[in-house]
């Protein structure tokens, strides 16, 4: 007897071909992937795929976007799998499983002000949501983008931030924590300090966050000071992923499997678990 087939694309990878590659900053590339599949690839921003390189293994990577029938993944080369991934030549093939997890509830948030808070070297799941909001500008109120980095040239997608700022009705605030001299358009300090300058309605907003947990914890404190209720906050978490779909047990946070119940969580859902050391 032969076992049933693994669902293709979910448990058995499908083949994706590198159609284009763009360098975003040193060590960060956006891969444009053509998918070898007949079915359409439906996904929500904030969901992720498991990308596979022959003989090396899989890594979870957020879905950055969809452009001209190509799937976009922005990848930071940090190790065993991601380094060779970004070094692939056009035409090379890789494996892909997904999409997995819960994305940002962008439809549910229509009509509200959107506040995006990210820190670190860029946060693909949030950038995807920003792009969506900007492209559907009429559906949302104010759009505020807060991004913190150590040095201003760490900022990923710099041209894109300029572009968002130039839209006029989109407030972009940037902070560099380890810079000595202030640059034009930049503030010195932490991303959380930018909230004081942000223009949005605390009673009618949604906050979308992604970044190191310490940053998100600090931001939550600041948000509370600005009268933003927990109910308005969504955040994307990171854990070790092996299977991507709630089977391997690696990504647990209390009663949740981050891969399947997240990676985007409504903050009240995980509040009692979030930020505890060693959980």
């Amino acid at each position, binding site marked *: *007897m032969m*076992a049933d*087939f*693994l669902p293709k694309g979910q448990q058995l990878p499908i083949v994706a071909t590198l159609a284009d590659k763009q360098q975003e900053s040193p060590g960060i590339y956006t891969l444009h992937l053509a998918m070898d599949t007949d079915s359409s690839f439906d996904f929500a921003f904030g969901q992720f795929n498991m990308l596979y390189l022959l*003989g090396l293994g899989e890594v979870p990577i957020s879905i950055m976007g969809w452009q001209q029938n190509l799937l976009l993944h922005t990848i930071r080369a*940090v190790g065993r799998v991601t380094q060779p991934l970004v070094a692939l030549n056009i035409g090379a093939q890789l494996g892909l499983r997904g999409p997995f997890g819960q994305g940002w509830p962008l439809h549910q948030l229509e009509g509200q002000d959107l506040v995006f808070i990210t820190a670190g070297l860029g946060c693909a799941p949030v950038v995807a949501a920003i792009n969506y909001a900007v492209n559907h500008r009429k559906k949302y109120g104010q759009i505020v983008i807060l991004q913190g980095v150590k040095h201003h040239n760490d900022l990923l997608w710099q041209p894109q931030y300029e572009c968002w700022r130039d839209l006029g009705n989109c407030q972009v605030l940037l902070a560099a924590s380890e810079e000595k001299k202030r640059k034009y358009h930049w503030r010195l300090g932490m991303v959380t300090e930018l909230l004081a300058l942000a223009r949005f309605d605390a009673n009618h907003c949604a906050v979308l966050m992604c970044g190191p947990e310490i940053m998100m914890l600090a931001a939550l404190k600041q948000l509370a000071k600005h009268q933003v209720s927990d109910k308005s906050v969504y955040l994307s978490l990171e854990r070790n992923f092996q299977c991507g779909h709630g089977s391997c047990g*690696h990504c647990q946070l209390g009663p949740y499997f981050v891969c399947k119940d997240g990676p985007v969580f409504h903050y009240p859902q995980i509040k009692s678990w979030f930020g505890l050391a060693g959980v």
Partner: protein
Amino acid sequence: MDKGFLPRQQFPELYQALTKAGYEVIGPTVKDGAIVFSPLAGFEQLPTGWKEQTSPGRYQLEQTAGQRCFYWNTGPQALKPWLFKPEQPLWQAEQTADGLCFRQTPEQVQPRAFIGLRGCDLAALKIHDQHFLKGVFTDPYYQAQRQQLFIIAVNCARSASTCFCVSTGDGPTATFGFDMLLDELEEGFLVASGSDQGELIMQQLPLANTKKKQISEAKQQLQSATQQQRVMPDEQQLLKLVDRLEHPQWQDVAERCLACGNCTLVCPTCFCSKQESHSDVKGQQADQVRLWDSCFSEQHSYIVGKVFRPEISQRYRQWLTHKLATWQQQFDRSGCVGCGRCISWCPVGIDLVEEAQALLKSEADDG
């Protein structure tokens, strides 16, 4: 349930009936000083006369004068490695002239009859069914093995000192999930069926009518198996473990725990796994393999630049709070079926019941 009586000297006829029906018979046998499940060439390989003495950190087989084959209670493992395998190839990737190809690793399955599973084993099987069959996706490898199982359960006639299935509600009686059920008496077996397939096998056995005395004897020994020393706090109590994440007891247990992960490997309900890519020398072909893993390993919580649970106290806390508390939110019941394996197979004798009680007793961390 109608029971029949199978005299001990005719017990091998059950083996014959099973093999005739096409099953490979898997049962308990003595190997390296422990009871393990393996393919049986005949019932003479059953652990006749053996029982185990267990205590925290200790498991020892002991020969008795009797003829019973199921007088022991547990071994280090029962069903888990047969369905959720320690090493499971999932799929293969190959670089061919036509490009990259992916295919599922074929899985050979053959009808198997397991004899000697207990109430706690069946409770653990039900938990794994929920996880592997009713999760986001069905695991086809688990499912393939699961679908062809024929289960002959045995009611426990005694309890090991580490057993506490009475307090978790999972034993010592097997109440569901079997095709046949045995009560072992000195002179033979009370046999009942639990499914149509079980009924078919049962019809082939030279069964005698049961005697009143046999029924009451079976009842009595079951009753004696319910006398257990360990009592796991009830599920409502266990939920409170998550209010005690800062309890000093975690540090206390961390000083004893080696983080070896034995407890998770012998536990019939633990399901953690990791994946590895095993490639051939030329790098043209690779197998994606799933391997058992444990929340006691440091890598379990590793992401680039961070380990979420660097301390042993945090990893022990993950084990205990998951197994006993957060498991309840995930699967509507605790993940512990009271088999006591993690207690006897812990090299330093850490007793999870004692730890759970200690954590719940003190109100130090309340509020």
